[in-house]
């Protein structure tokens, strides 16, 4: 079913909307959740919550891209659950991803941001549009989809060390870009 048709079902408050969403996007969301939570049951629960979240959000929201809209909800829910689930069993892999992002911040423990996240996200999008396409996709695979370095290396037919170095340089460039744009994060 086309995304636009699925969204229409949400607007009509027709519960098959969730069924159709699940058919089309369960695997997609599951992978995103699993990359963060690394546990099948937790991920499934997270994805179910995602679909519920979509049901509550549409309407009033009309997602331009249903895939990234659902992916974003999944990430946010997974991130919230992450602290709770991981109190004892830390996911080192995801911790590494978060640690890497410190490179883009001026201080890892910065106080409340004075900026709207949409504003910063727009600036990050502009940055990503300007850089090499492969570097952009590698960045998004790592920090949007939370892919492991090994998965990214395989996907782009490069070595893990090359993946690391591309990510490092891109993070540093992003930090510079955000500073130039006036965002001191």
């Amino acid at each position: 079913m086309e995304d636009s048709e699925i969204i229409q079902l949400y607007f009509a408050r027709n519960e098959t909307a969730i069924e159709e969403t699940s058919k089309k996007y369960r695997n997609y969301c599951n992978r995103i959740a699993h990359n963060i939570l690394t546990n099948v049951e937790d991920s499934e629960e997270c994805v179910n919550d995602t679909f519920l979240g979509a049901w509550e959000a549409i309407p009033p929201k009309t997602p331009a891209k249903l895939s990234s809209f659902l992916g974003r909800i999944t990430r946010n829910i997974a991130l919230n659950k992450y602290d709770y689930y991981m109190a004892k069993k830390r996911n080192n892999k995801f911790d590494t991803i978060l640690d890497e992002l410190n490179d883009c911040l001026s201080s890892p423990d910065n106080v409340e941001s004075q900026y709207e996240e949409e504003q910063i996200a727009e600036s990050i999008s502009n940055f990503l549009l300007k850089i090499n396409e492969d570097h952009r996709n590698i960045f998004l695979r790592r920090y949007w989809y939370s892919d492991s370095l090994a998965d990214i290396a395989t996907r782009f037919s490069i070595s893990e060390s090359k993946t690391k170095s591309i990510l490092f340089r891109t993070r540093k460039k992003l930090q510079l870009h955000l500073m130039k744009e006036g965002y001191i994060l």
Partner: protein
Amino acid sequence: MNNKDLFKTIGYVDGNLVEKANTARRTNKKTIVKWGTMAACAALVLGVAIYTSPLKPSLTNSPQISQQTPVSAPTGDRKILNYNGFRYAFVSDGAQFKFTGVKLEKSLGSLDFDINQEIGKNDGDKDVEKNYASTFAVGGKLYEIPTYPSQFRIAVKYEENYYLAEIVAKTDDSTMTAKEYLDMSNLKDHSKNIHVLNHVGNDVLKKMTDHASVESIIDGLYSAKTADLSNKEYEAIAEAQSQGKSYQLKFNLKDGTYMAMYIIPELRVVSMGDAYYHLPDTFFDQSGELFSGLKQEVLPLY
């Protein structure tokens, strides 16, 4: 803001970029860069020669693939080969091609099996899907074309002549999505302009040369959905073809070759390789005037 906030914020980046990254693989550009670097190295080695004749174009020419012999009449078996799980059709029904500015160095094996003979055997049918089986140029050697690292197109060398083969399907006939096809062909990077022709392809009806519009048409094709056609729909396509409602959508590529699809605007279907795909109405809304007011003479069916 801490790293978790930043991670969340990244969640709000442009959905189009996120979607592209979802299926992204290494782009072609890398290879071009690599070739560029190799050309630069060659330039260093040949520094003096280049210096004395700086305008010599041989090293700066973009790779070209040119057809050397006319398209033969489509008689007999279709000229196809199997490689790496894909069925390839010989471009222009087995015409010979010349590769300029492209080195065919990476061997991909040779065509060891003759599908025609395999079919004749009692248990031959199983070999129709076999890699390195072919209906044409059996014994020929396969080479990767550096400008097609995805191997959407490969070269076949047979009796000192070169042929070009292009993916049309998977050998097990499993579904190939429009996205897979378009990504593998890297149509967006390769395309120079688009022509709309009559179905048989001898009359150009419309041209689209503006780069942004060409890109937008190709982007639109990504929205095509695999069509699991019923017999009725096949009949409708055949009828549309016989009534002059099917057009050739020809993508002229930077390397001098082209890729052709067939499109039937009235039925909202387009062919890519051997498969048909449904196009959403929005594709036609966004394609401007490209498909409006088209007319062609209905040709007699043979």
